[in-house]
């Protein structure tokens, strides 16, 4: 039987989107640190501006280094194309504003990264786009929250802070039955652990700042177009199915078929909102992606070690991770994230808020900061930092107990991470 010979994931992580530079022979992806590109002649210039020919014009819209990153992430996510943006937030914004206008409504998971909640709750309503939040396990709640003016369902693959596993196939079915696309923020999974497009999602966004880049050195975001949503059949997306006066009357769905969304996101979203990624950041993130499969495998192996250690420690009141049988979504995690449910671990300390603060201050190897997905182990005690103004009751409502510590498990030798946690746990119990 003939079988397709596609390049495999690890190979695509190294190669997708790039061939040795034709101008210089450079094997690594060159940093094209340029704002603009010389036209061959006036006809060529006119053709580029009219989308008669493809190519680079100005780095706010596209750049050769950034384009390699875009293509690589699209390849790893099995999409039809991608647009990189200045940050994960910029990518999320790009997805939303490409699809809808004032008066539109979003149904989103309530368990989102705090910054995304801010964008949806406080900022987008000023521009006429409102959101209803639904607990991520409440599939029926999503269905019921959909209104005639709803244009998007949005959720994270692993919720914050409960690490709820998103039932992508079920939610995709609900979205599609209502003629709506599903956008999944897959930052915590990366395409190594899960490919939402394969599971039915239509748009995937990443904060590439996190595991994709993987070294805590560059901000960036990517929006991947899965290419399966039929904008024309839905009839709810005039930005993609009607002539766009801002670009020579182009009807993106008619002109580009499955690539309509990504084409509009670039030619309008990047052009007009301008949240482009710098070529240097694209280069740094690409270096990270080259080793994504190796790093993610190690992140997961280390996470398994840490889970085992924490589970047996008397100063630890509880441990939350979908790979643990005690997690409510354990079975779903096994199905959708068979290589592991990410390297974020939450746990509770005996002794509450004060013990949490003592624990953080005692960590020597794990770095106390507000980020995740670094090569180095990171640790945060929300109750004494990001959420410090909240009362115990408010924290409970937000799903962030006073005693909760969040760990982003890094790539150090796992026994060193364990030793650091052990001594910090000991310190946390001295009052």
């Amino acid at each position, binding site marked *: *039987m*003939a*079988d*397709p*010979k*596609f*390049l495999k994931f690890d190979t695509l992580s190294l*190669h*997708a*989107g*790039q*061939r040795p530079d034709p101008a210089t022979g450079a094997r690594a992806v060159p940093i094209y640190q340029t704002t603009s590109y010389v036209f061959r002649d006036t006809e060529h210039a006119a*053709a580029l501006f*009219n*989308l*008669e*020919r*493809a*190519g*680079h014009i100005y780095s706010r*819209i*596209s*750049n*050769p280094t*950034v*384009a*390699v990153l*875009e*293509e*690589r992430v*699209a*390849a790893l996510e*099995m*999409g*039809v*194309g*991608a*647009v*990189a943006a200045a940050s994960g937030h910029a990518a999320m914004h790009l997805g939303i504003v490409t699809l809808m206008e004032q008066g539109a409504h979003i149904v989103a998971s309530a368990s989102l990264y705090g910054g995304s909640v801010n964008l949806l709750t406080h900022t987008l309503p000023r521009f006429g786009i409102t959101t209803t939040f639904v607990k991520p396990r409440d599939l029926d709640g999503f269905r019921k929250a959909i209104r005639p003016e709803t244009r998007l369902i949005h959720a994270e693959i692993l919720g914050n802070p409960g690490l709820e596993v998103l039932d992508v196939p079920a939610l995709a079915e609900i979205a599609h039955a209502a003629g709506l696309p599903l956008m999944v923020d897959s930052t915590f999974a990366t395409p190594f652990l899960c490919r939402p497009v394969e599971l039915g999602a239509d748009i995937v966004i990443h904060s590439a700042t996190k595991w994709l880049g993987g070294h805590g050195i560059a901000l960036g975001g990517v929006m991947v177009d899965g*290419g*399966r949503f*039929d904008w*024309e059949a839905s009839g709810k997306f005039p930005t993609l199915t009607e002539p766009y006066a801002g670009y*020579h*009357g*182009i009807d993106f769905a*008619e*002109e*580009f*078929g*499955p*690539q309509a969304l*990504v084409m509009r996101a*670039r030619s309008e979203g990047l052009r007009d909102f301008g949240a482009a990624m710098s070529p240097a950041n694209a280069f740094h993130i690409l270096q990270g992606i080259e080793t994504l499969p190796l790093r993610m495998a190690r992140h997961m192996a280390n996470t398994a070690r840490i889970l085992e250690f924490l589970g047996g420690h008397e100063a630890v009141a509880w441990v939350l991770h979908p790979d643990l049988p005690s997690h409510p979504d354990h079975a779903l995690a096994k199905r959708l994230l068979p290589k592991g449910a990410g390297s974020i671990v939450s746990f509770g300390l005996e002794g509450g808020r004060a013990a949490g603060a003592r624990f953080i201050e005692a960590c020597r190897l794990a770095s106390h900061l507000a980020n995740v997905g670094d090569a180095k182990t990171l640790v945060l005690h929300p109750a004494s930092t990001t959420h410090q103004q909240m009362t115990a009751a408010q924290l409970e409502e937000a799903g962030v107990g006073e005693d909760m510590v969040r760990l982003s498990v890094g790539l150090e030798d796992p026994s060193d991470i364990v030793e650091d946690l052990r001594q910090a746990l000991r310190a946390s119990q001295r009052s």
Partner: protein
Amino acid sequence: MEVTVDGRRVFAATGGRDFDPAPPAVVFIHGAGMDHTVWALQTRFFAYHGRGVLAVDLPGHGRSEGPALDSISGIADWLTRLTDAAGLPRAALAGHSMGALAALDCAGRHPERVRALALLGAAPRMPVHPDLLAAAEADDHLAFDLVTDWAHGDSGHLGGARAPGLWLMGGGERLLERAAPGVLYRDLAACNAYQDAPERAAAVTCPTLLVLGADDRMTPPRAGRKLAETVPGARVELIADSGHMLMTEKPDQTLDALKTIL
């Protein structure tokens, strides 16, 4: 734009401008299981440079009503009825793969209707691998995978798309997935059965250009050159580092080649 052929609705993209039958026209004909969008990076240019453009969705494909036609000569005859419906006594035909066979058949049997001929990814015979045919007949996703694999050269498999940020393998596969059940099979079976290319080629009277991908595994350039030898006066443009999907893998070179004939 929409026209009616045989009482059925037919969609043709016009390159971003209203279609005007007065200037010389070009009809673009896609390959098996695809639609007009494969020509996105060629058609706008012609529409904005003095040509009337019709990038058709063949019956049962894209936005055109079905059913799909089931033979190459059937598509060729349909093309004459399409150009009738669009008010075109003559047109240049640019066909890709199955579309190239149909364009050739049309030019061979209706030479008075064809001003010029561009055959992309063409060969005298297009035998289809029996496993592919079987998968297509069963509407098995494997058929889309096999076509996507075999139709792309390194510039698809490794990437480096001319259009920034597009992953051609994904785009190609999603386009095939959009085809209605049975359509890819009908198309492939029509290609597989077609034996008339040499005879039609000999009867072509208009200027003809074959555009061939140097790394094309579906219609290898060797086969394409054989076909070219049988068309009186035909030229060959070989495009380096391209597989079968010339229009998306090497959009600029393909456009430059087409500019010399259309």
